[in-house]
């Protein structure tokens, strides 16, 4: 609740004007039964045709004024609802952009996407309806009660009773339905995940002949969703007929006691008709209100999800860095993905000078890529300290191991709209990353996640993207795994020829790192040895073993 109000604040005036003019509309509506009463009691009773005519003209005037009020009110509520939710969406998106990788891992992308799209859409529908009707309905009800009070105090007690009983029912129902609906949304997330899996894993699912199982599995989730939806609807469905029943029961009592009073002469016929009309208005409004309550409870369940997302505390980011002599200095840096004792990296210390190249090599799962993402500041260390020259992090170009491209042109994919990348930089990057053989024009269309390129082509584009901003440190994480040896050699030569750029080259191939100024050998998250190729061949058993295996294959 409070969460939505934060956003309403900015549109205070619109959010006040809307319902206010709705209230004006109601006032004119409420006067109608009164006029009719006068037509019956005064006009008809006294055969006064001119009184009747004037009253009718008043009726018409009222509907025109009411209509103008509505116009203004509808516009204000549409305006507020759309803008409030767009603000909310943009805020949520900014928040998501500020998430560290581990936050995204934890929340899950399907959840983020449904929240940003369908949850916020539900809220928009809810706010729009609420602004239009939430104030209107209680006001009509209250107005009707007051009007009844003006006509006959005794009988109006019935109105108060009806309103109280229904208020209790609505509140109770509301409390039960919100959590149920939230469960529906959570299960919908699962259906989204299954759909996503089914689409992205199409080859593996078919390759392992699992289509039938996956379909069965999907159906289990839709079945569960179906059950939850029905359970949630079961609660809200009762509201509508129950309101109808209660209001009409009171209507019967009203007519009976009204008739009794007429026979005593304490009420007129016109007054009974008016009372009946007011009860009728209450009924119509309450039924609208119950429908509104269902919508609002959904919107609230959704707003809970949005506020949880926006309120997620992102993992802490270090902004103040110590300074050091070199470009970059790691001292005793440790890192754990789950913030526990299972360290992916432990006590890592090394430094990188300007223009220097460092190779990182090690077995699968030894922490190479993790070290790369720490250097790129994708993750923050859980222990130790990273320092930079003058305390300012250098510009980094990071070619991740597994990467996704954007839909758009080749030039967008390389430049990514960064201000510091010129079109000349893009051309150079295409050349350096050996992309010229498949990027004939910078305007070449790249499909979503690079579907129209081969694995090796995607990798080269990924490298072009990293070097185009002329970074101080270039990190290449296993960037040539899908390249054939000839293209790979060409690429290595070209990258080595870039001068003045410090390089971190992560690989499991000795060949890729052996020309580096320094090579760090990782094993199970620890630096087991470091030095240049020759030194490592002498001292490091893992390196020696790798070298032996790789030269054996070369000399075979």
């Amino acid at each position, binding site marked *: 609740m409070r969460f939505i109000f934060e956003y309403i604040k900015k549109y205070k005036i619109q959010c006040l004007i809307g319902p206010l003019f709705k209230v004006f509309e109601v006032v004119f509506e409420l006067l109608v039964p009164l006029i009719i009463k006068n037509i019956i009691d005064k006009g008809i009773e006294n055969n006064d045709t001119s009184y009747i005519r004037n009253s009718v003209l008043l009726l018409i005037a009222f509907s025109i004024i009411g209509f103008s009020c509505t116009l203004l009110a509808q516009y204000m509520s549409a*305006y507020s609802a759309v803008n409030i939710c767009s603000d909310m969406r943009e805020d949520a998106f900014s928040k998501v952009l500020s998430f560290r990788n581990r936050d995204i891992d934890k929340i899950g992308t399907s959840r983020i996407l449904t929240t940003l799209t369908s949850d916020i859409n539900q809220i928009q529908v809810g706010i729009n309806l609420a602004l239009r009707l939430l104030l209107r309905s209680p006001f009509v009800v209250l107005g009707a009660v007051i009007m009844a009070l003006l006509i006959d105090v005794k009988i109006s007690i019935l109105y108060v009773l009806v309103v109280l009983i229904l208020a209790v029912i609505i509140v109770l129902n509301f409390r039960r339905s919100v959590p149920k609906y939230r469960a529906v949304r959570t299960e919908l997330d699962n259906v989204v995940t299954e759909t996503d899996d*089914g689409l992205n894993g199409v*080859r593996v699912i078919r390759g392992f002949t699992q289509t039938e199982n996956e379909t069965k599995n*999907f159906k289990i989730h839709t079945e569960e969703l179906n059950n939850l939806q029905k359970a949630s609807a079961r609660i809200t469905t009762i509201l509508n007929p129950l309101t109808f029943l209660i209001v009409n029961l009171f209507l019967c009592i009203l007519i009976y006691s009204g*008739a009794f009073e007429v026979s005593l002469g304490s009420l007129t016929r016109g007054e009974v008709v008016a009372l009946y009309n007011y009860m009728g208005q209450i009924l119509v409004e309450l039924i609208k209100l119950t429908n509104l309550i269902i919508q609002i409870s959904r919107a609230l369940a959704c707003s809970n999800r949005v506020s949880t997302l926006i309120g997620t505390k992102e993992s802490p980011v270090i902004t103040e860095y110590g300074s050091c002599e070199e470009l970059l200095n790691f001292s005793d840096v440790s890192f754990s993905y789950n913030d526990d004792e299972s360290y992916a990296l432990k006590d890592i210390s090394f430094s990188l000078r300007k223009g220097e190249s460092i190779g990182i090599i090690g077995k*699968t*799962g030894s922490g190479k890529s993790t070290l790369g993402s720490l250097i790129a500041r994708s993750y923050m260390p859980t222990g130790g300290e990273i320092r930079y020259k003058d305390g300012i992090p250098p510009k980094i170009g990071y070619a991740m191991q597994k990467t996704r491209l954007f839909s758009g042109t080749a030039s967008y994919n390389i430049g990514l709209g960064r201000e510091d990348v010129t079109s000349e930089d893009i051309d150079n990057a295409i050349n350096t990353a050996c992309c010229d053989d498949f990027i004939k024009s910078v305007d070449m269309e790249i499909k979503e996640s690079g579907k129209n390129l081969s694995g090796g082509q995607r990798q080269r584009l990924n490298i072009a993207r990293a070097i185009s901003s002329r970074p101080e440190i270039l990190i290449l994480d296993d960037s040539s795994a899908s390249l054939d040896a000839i293209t790979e050699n060409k690429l290595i030569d070209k990258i080595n020829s870039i001068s003045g750029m410090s390089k971190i080259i992560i690989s499991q191939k000795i060949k890729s790192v052996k020309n580096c100024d320094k090579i760090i050998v990782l094993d199970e998250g620890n630096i087991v040895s470091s030095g240049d190729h020759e030194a490592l061949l002498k001292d490091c058993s893992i390196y020696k073993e790798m070298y032996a295996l790789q030269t054996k294959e070369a000399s075979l």
Partner: protein
Amino acid sequence: MRKKGLIKTLIRLLKMSKGSGPKLVFSIILAAITSVLTLLIPYFFGKIVDLLTDDVDMGEVLTYLLFILSFIVITSVLTYVMNTLNYMISYDTVKRLRDSAYEKINRLPVSYIEKTSVGSVESLIINDCETVSDGLLVSLNQFFTGLITIIVVFVIMFVINWRLALLIALITPVTLLITAVFIRSINDHLKAHSSAKGKQTGFLNEMINNLREIRTFGIEKSIKDKLTDIDNDYRKIAVKATFLSSLVNPSTRLFNGTIYALVALLGALSVISGGMTVGALSSLLAYATTYMKPINEISGVFSELSDSLACAARIFEYLDEEETERLDKGTIVTFDGDIELRDLVFSYDGTRNVIDKMNLKIPSGTKVAIVGPTGCGKTTLINLLMRFYEPVSGEILIDGRPINDLSKNVLRSHVGMVPQDTWFKTATIRRNILYGVHRKETTDEDIIKTSKILGVHSFVRNLPRKYDEIITSKREDISDGQRQLLSIDRAFMSDPEILILDEATSSVDAITENKITSAVRMLCKGRTSVIIAHRLSTIIDADMIVVMDKGRIIESGDHETLVKQGGYYSKLYDSFMQ
């Protein structure tokens, strides 16, 4: 809106969701009963008003009240039943639609799925299906209720005062016309609205999947600005569309107000001249309001109907896409694993041949390595062998039998594949390792045994929940190399006759690879294996090495022969030696 389209769509929807047809009919009948009963209440109330003279007959009042009372109770119960039926129809239909749309994924050609964006199919399954079930069936019900109400009210009004009833009836078409014109004029705005929303969703979908890249390149601001741009357009369009569509109701209400006033005027004059009673006037006024309400609703229903019909059309178009996969089991056959390609030609776009007249024989039990520059058609060959794609001409034979004679399921159950892109189901590691296992009695010991050989156990052991840990396609603490090991493990466990490794160990280090090489060699023993690799160690001991370029085989033979030939392979070999 074309009526034929509506009825056709409706019949198809109801056919899909079993039991919904009778439910819908029943619900419409209930709607008819409840609206008639609800409408009789003001009629009887009018009767009571006429009794309210100086000398009230309380007995007669009570009789009428009892009528009203029974109507109320029956209506409440029936409304409850009707609403229950309605939500059941709606939720069951959305489930059936989603299930069919998901099943369809599995029957569509791979090419369709790879060409279409994941986001658009996903939005079809998640959003469009819901719009259809919510909109179409519910608004249909409203339509019928409205229609019945209009007819019943008119009849009652006619009974009370036929002159006034006729007057109201004559004005009705005018109201309908006004709303129809109005709705048509805002239709363009509604369409613009839904396309703006689609653009926004598509953008968010892509960016959320690319969050890692956005962070890495520090382009949060420019991406955020892009959303703001898209959103600014969206805001304008959405405010307009929302406002305009919320105008239908008040406009007709204005019109109704006028009619109401007119009825009051003529009615009151008629009472004075003795043409009708005050009670009749009060009922007539009540009916004039109820008469107009369904007309309002029906006009609202029309816009919702056309919206959901458009969605339904989109869903059916998708469901009617040509299928290439049949889920039949086929007859089980035994495989030796002799593979032969005969004049195989394939093209993705119909212009450039990615595979160009390829002929190749792979005897059962041999290991063939395929090498060549990126984009030369290696992975395409696997696509054809697995029948993810069908060749343009030529054929593939296994044991001398064209693979098109086999059911795809049978073919694939004999082939174990380690694809280039490692994909795992969002599920436990255990479930993923056992993904292709058909026999049921696989124990944890079996899993651990092979996992140990393949170097999987050593890292799974360190995860908090071990084999019960959920693996997703984005989980960061499992490295790419480890994923590849898992992927090999998965293929290994399915115990296939033919094994396909597409760059299966490209991210695995030499030591680990060396360790698992013997396991892989063991795995390959007695099986036909096709290996795509860039690593010399994986290629070198193949029985045959095939060098591909531009969809053709340019060299083939064993390592020694090819090195001596001095062609592409020997150049490749020299690059390794550098």
